[in-house]
C-alpha cells in the first residue's frame, strides 16, 4: 500500500495543473512544495496569455484545467491581440494582480478534493525495478506513491546573477532546490543548463506619469474560461516608454560587467525575449527600444518594466533605468536578475510526458526546457491527466499538432528537444487557422470528458454553445439583403456580424462569443477547409504507427547519426519520425520499408 497515488513535486503553474488534474481524476494526490507561500507565483511578467499563449490557456481550460479560472478572478486589464492582423490568430492577454492570482491558486488547491499539500524539499526519488515508487525529502521523509510528476521549474540548482553577485536561488530571495538535480544526474537523466531573466520593479508613486504613454485595455473584459460568460474585475492601465542613446551608452560601457558577456552564465537564454544588453549589442542601429510599464497588482506599488530584463550590476541598472522618460526619478524596489537552472532533455520523454528512463515518472513545465506560465501549465495538465490514466490502465492523452497548441508544444519538445527556453509561437503550429482560441472547447472538451478530466456540465455547456451557433447560422441563412443571404454577405470583407445586426436584430440576441465564432468560421471557410484537408493528410501519417520496440539497429542503410536520433526519440509514428531534425527522406523511406516488412 502506497502513501499516495500520485505525488506532484512543485507548486508552480505546471504543478498546480498536474495536482488538480490528478485529484480531479479521483486519485489521492500530494503536492510537495518548497514554500506554501509561493504557490502559483507569477515570477516574471504579471500577465497571462498573449499570442499562442492565450490559446494554450483556453485549451487548458477546455481540458478541465484551472489557469483560466485563476486569471479570470485576478485580471486587471484584458486585451484581444492582433485583431486586425489576423482575426484567426488573435489571442487574449490579461494583466494579472499577481498577489490575487497566487492567493487564489493556493485557495483553489486547498479546496480541491483528494489533494493534500505539504511543505518540504524533495532531494531524491525512490526507485524500484526501473519504476519510481516515491520521494525522499530534505527533512528525511520517505513518501511512497504509484506515480510522480516532477515540476521543479527554475529551482533545480537555480543560480541568480546580478552583475558580479550571484547566489543559489530559484527566484530572488528563495533558495534553490539542491540535491534533486544531482540525484537525477546520478540516475543518468540528461541534464542541461538554461538561462532566463526578469526586469527590475519600480515604485509606482515615483513615476512621472506625464512622460508615459497610456495603454488601455479592452472594455468589456472577457473570460478565458469557457465556464461562464462574464468577468467583473477592476481595470488598470499600462504605460509605454522608450530607451534612448544615453541608456544604450551606459549599457555598452558596462557590458563587461554582465555575467552573460563575462562568461559566468553558460546556459542559453531565449532569443525571442533578450535582455536589454543583448538588444543593445545585437541591434546597434536601433536608437530606441520600447518598454512597457505594467502594474503588478491593485494594491501594489511595484511596476514591472517589460522589455528591460538585465543581468547588469545594480548600480548600472539604477543609472540606465533612470534615463528613460517617466522613470527619471524612479525608486527601484527589486533589481533585474538572470537565473540559470537545470533542465532535463525532453527528448527523454514519451509524448505522454512519461519518462522513458523511469516508469511512472512524469515531467512537466520549465524543467522540460520551456519558458512561460502557460507552456508550463499546458504540460502540467497533460502530465497530471496521463499519470492518472496510467494508474487506470488507460491509454494516455496525446494531442496531435492539428488538434491543439498543446499538441504542437509537447510534440516539439519530445521530438526535437530544445536548445533555448521553448516558447509557444503561432508559427510553430502548421494548422493554426484551425487552432483558434475561441474554438478550443469544441476541439478538446469531448476528448477531456472521455479522459475523465471534465464534468458532464462542461460538455453540456459546449453542446449548448454549438447548438446556438447552428441556430445563428440558420438565422443568417434566412436573412436576405441585396439578394444574398446572411452567410454569403458575411463572407464579404467589410460585412461584420454587427453590420448585419442592424438589419436583423435577432442576430444581436446571440452572445458575443457565439457571434464572433460563427463570424470567423464563415469568413474563413475556404481557408479552413483547405487547412482541414491538409490536416487529414497529416493525420494519416500520424496514424502510421511505429512499434515502441522497433529495432533501429536491424534497419540497414540508416546513417549512424540518424540511428542514434531514432533510438533517442523512439517516434510513435512515421509522422513524428519525419519531424526529427536531421533525419533524411531516405531514413524515413527505410523505416517505412521496414514497417512494410520489406
Amino acid at each position, binding site marked *: 500500500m502506497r502513501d499516495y497515488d500520485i505525488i506532484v513535486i512543485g507548486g508552480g503553474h505546471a504543478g498546480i495543473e498536474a495536482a488538480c488534474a490528478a485529484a480531479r481524476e479521483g486519485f489521492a494526490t500530494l503536492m510537495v512544495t518548497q514554500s506554501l507561500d509561493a504557490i502559483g507565483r507569477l515570477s516574471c511578467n504579471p500577465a497571462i496569455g498573449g499570442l499562442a499563449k492565450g490559446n494554450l490557456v483556453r485549451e487548458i481550460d477546455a481540458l478541465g484545467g484551472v489557469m483560466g479560472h485563476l486569471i479570470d478572478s485576478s485580471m486587471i486589464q484584458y486585451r484581444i491581440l492582433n485583431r486586425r492582423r489576423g482575426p484567426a490568430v488573435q489571442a487574449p492577454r490579461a494583466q494579472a494582480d499577481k498577489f490575487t492570482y497566487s492567493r487564489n491558486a493556493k485557495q483553489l488547491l486547498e479546496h480541491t478534493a483528494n489533494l493534500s499539500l505539504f511543505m518540504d524539499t524533495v532531494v531524491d526519488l525512490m526507485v524500484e525495478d526501473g519504476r519510481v515508487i516515491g520521494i525522499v525529502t530534505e527533512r528525511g521523509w520517505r513518501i511512497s506513491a504509484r506515480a510522480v510528476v516532477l515540476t521543479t521549474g527554475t529551482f533545480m540548482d537555480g543560480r541568480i546573477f546580478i552583475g558580479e553577485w550571484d547566489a543559489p536561488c530559484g527566484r530572488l530571495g528563495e533558495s534553490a532546490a539542491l540535491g534533486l538535480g544531482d540525484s537525477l544526474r546520478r540516475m543518468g537523466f540528461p541534464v542541461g543548463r538554461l538561462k532566463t531573466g526578469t526586469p527590475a520593479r519600480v515604485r509606482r508613486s515615483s513615476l512621472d506619469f506625464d512622460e508615459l504613454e497610456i495603454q488601455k485595455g479592452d472594455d468589456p473584459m472577457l473570460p478565458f474560461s469557457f465556464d461562464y460568460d462574464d468577468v467583473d474585475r477592476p481595470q488598470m492601465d499600462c504605460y509605454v516608454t522608450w530607451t534612448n542613446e544615453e541608456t544604450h551608452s551606459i549599457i555598452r560601457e558596462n557590458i563587461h560587467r554582465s555575467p552573460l558577456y563575462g562568461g559566468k552564465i553558460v546556459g542559453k537564454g531565449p532569443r525571442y525575449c533578450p535582455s536589454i544588453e543583448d538588444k543593445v549589442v545585437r541591434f546597434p542601429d536601433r536608437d530606441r527600444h520600447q518598454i512597457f510599464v505594467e502594474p503588478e497588482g491593485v494594491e501594489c506599488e511595484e511596476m514591472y518594466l517589460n522589455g528591460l530584463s538585465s543581468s547588469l550590476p545594480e548600480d548600472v541598472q539604477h543609472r540606465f533605468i533612470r534615463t528613460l522618460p517617466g522613470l527619471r526619478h524612479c525608486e527601484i524596489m527589486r533589481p533585474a536578475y538572470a537565473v540559470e537552472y537545470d533542465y532535463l532533455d525532453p527528448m527523454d520523454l514519451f509524448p505522454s510526458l512519461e519518462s522513458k528512463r523511469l516508469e511512472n515518472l512524469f515531467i512537466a513545465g520549465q524543467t522540460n526546457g520551456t519558458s512561460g506560465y502557460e507552456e508550463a501549465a499546458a504540460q502540467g495538465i497533460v502530465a497530471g491527466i496521463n499519470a492518472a490514466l496510467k494508474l487506470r490502465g488507460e491509454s494516455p492523452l496525446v494531442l496531435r499538432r492539428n488538434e491543439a497548441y498543446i499538441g504542437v508544444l509537447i510534440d516539439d519538445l519530445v521530438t526535437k528537444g530544445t536548445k533555448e527556453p521553448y516558447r509557444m509561437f503561432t508559427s510553430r503550429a502548421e494548422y493554426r487557422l484551425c487552432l483558434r482560441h475561441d474554438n478550443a472547447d469544441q476541439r478538446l472538451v469531448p476528448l477531456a470528458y472521455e479522459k475523465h478530466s471534465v464534468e458532464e456540465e462542461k460538455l453540456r455547456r459546449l453542446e449548448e454553445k454549438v447548438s446556438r451557433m447552428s441556430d445563428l447560422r440558420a438565422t443568417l441563412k434566412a436573412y436576405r439583403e441585396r439578394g444574398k443571404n446572411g452567410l454569403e454577405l458575411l463572407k464579404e470583407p467589410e460585412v461584420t456580424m454587427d453590420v448585419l445586426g442592424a438589419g436583423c436584430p435577432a442576430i444581436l440576441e446571440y452572445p458575443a462569443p457565439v457571434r464572433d465564432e460563427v463570424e470567423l468560421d464563415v469568413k474563413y471557410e475556404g*481557408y479552413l477547409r483547405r487547412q482541414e484537408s491538409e490536416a487529414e493528410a497529416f493525420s494519416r501519417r500520424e496514424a502510421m504507427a511505429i512499434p515502441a520496440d522497433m529495432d533501429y539497429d536491424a534497419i540497414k542503410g540508416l546513417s549512424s547519426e540518424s540511428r542514434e536520433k531514432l533510438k533517442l526519440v523512439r517516434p510513435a509514428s512515421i509522422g513524428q519520425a519525419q519531424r526529427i531534425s536531421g533525419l533524411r527522406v*531516405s531514413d524515413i523511406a527505410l523505416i517505412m520499408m521496414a514497417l512494410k516488412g520489406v
Partner: protein
Amino acid sequence: MENYSVDEPIYALATAYAPSALAVVRTSGKGSIGMLAGAFSPSGRLVRAANGTLVHGHVLDEDGTTIDEVVLSVYREGHGYTGEEAVEISTHGSLMVLRRLSARLVQLGFRPALRGEFTFRAFMHGRMDLTQAEAVEEIIGSRSVKSQEKAMDRLAGQLREAMGSIRTRLMSILASLEVQLDYAEDEILEDWVFPEEEVDDIISSLRSLVSTYDAGRIHRDGAKVVLAGKANAGKSSLFNLLVKEDRAIVSPVPGTTRDFIETWIDLGGIPVRLYDTAGLRSSDDEVESEGIRRSASLMAQADLVVYLVDPEDDVPLDELDETKTILVYSKSDRRRVEGALSISSLTGEGVGDLVASIVARLSSGTEALQDDTPVIDSRRQRDSLIACIEALENARASRGQSVDIMALFFQRALEEIGLITGEVTNEELLDTLFSQFCLGK
C-alpha cells in the same frame, strides 16, 4: 513501391537492349560479388578484388562454356551507385550474349530489377537527394551528349542553387509575415507591406525556369521529327542519308507497323527520333487508308515535320501545319526550286543546310539556354514551379487580406519549392518519383 527492397541481389541491363559494341549489366545487393564469382574465371581474383577495381576474365555458363569475355567493376558495400556491394559487367553487346548472361544471373540467384529500383536503392542508402536522383534518371535515359551535360550540371546542384536562392527569398518574406503574427501590434508597430518588387522578381525567376522545361524535354526525351510527303518524293533516300550522317545510331528499330520506320539519330547534339512515313498517298485501298491515317497522326504528334516535295508536284499547303513544318524540295540534281530549301539525296547537296535548319527549328525558343543555366526537365518540377507561381500570384491578388491569410500563400509557395529540392517530402511524392524511374530497364 511495396515491391522494392534493399540488399536483395538484383541485376539489370544498363544500356539499350540492342546490338552494340559494348553493353553494361549492373548487379547490386548483399553477396553479389561472391555469387558472381561462382560463374567467373578467375574467381579468386574477383573475390579478393578491392573496392573500385577492375577485374578482367570470362563469365561461364553452367556447363563451363564461356558466355563472354568481360571486364568487371567491383564495388564493396558503401561505395558505388547504390551504396551496396555491387559488380558492373562490361560485356560485348550482342543480343545472344545478353540473353545468355541474363539467364545465368538468374541461375546464380539474382532477380531482375524493378523499374527504378537501382535508383531507389541509391536513394535509400542516402547517396543522393531527389534532385540528383532525377538527374541520374535522365543520364540513363539520355540519348545524346548535350543532354548528359545538362544532367551533370544538375548533379553539381545548379538547380538546387537556383531553387535555394528563391527559397531563401520566400523564407524572408514569410518571416516578415510570421513576426507580425508571433508578436502583438504594440510590439511590432510597423504594418506589413506587400513586397511588390521582390515578389515580381521571384515570379519572373520562376517563369524563366519554367520556360527551360520545353527545351529540357527535347534534350531528354528527344524530338520527334517526321519525314512526310507523297510517295516517291524521296523520303526514304533522305531517311537513309540522315541516318548515315549520324554515326552514333543507337538502335534502328522497325516500326510496330509496316507503315513507318523510325530510328534515333543525333542532329547537332539533339537526340532525334526520326520517322519515315512510308506509303503516304491518297488511295481508296483500305489498308493504305489506314497507313495514311497513321502517318497523319504521326505528323500531328511530331515536334517537327520535314515535308518533301517533288519539284514537279504541287505543295498541299492547306494540309500542313506551318508552325512546325519545314518544306523541302527533293531531287535538286534534276531541278532546283529557287529561293527554297532543296536537297539531292543523290549528291548530298543541301542536306547540311537541311540539318542546320532542323536543329535551328528544334532549338528555337530555347536561345536563352546558356550552358550554365539550370534547366528543369521533369514534369514534377515544372508543375511545382507553376504551383509556386500561382501561390505568389494569388498572394499578389489578395494583398488586402489579413496577415494570417497572406502567410498561407507564401507557405504554399515554399512547400512547392521544397518539393523540388527534396527538402519537403511525403509518401505520395516518393511513390510518384519512383514509379517514373526507368533505370536500367
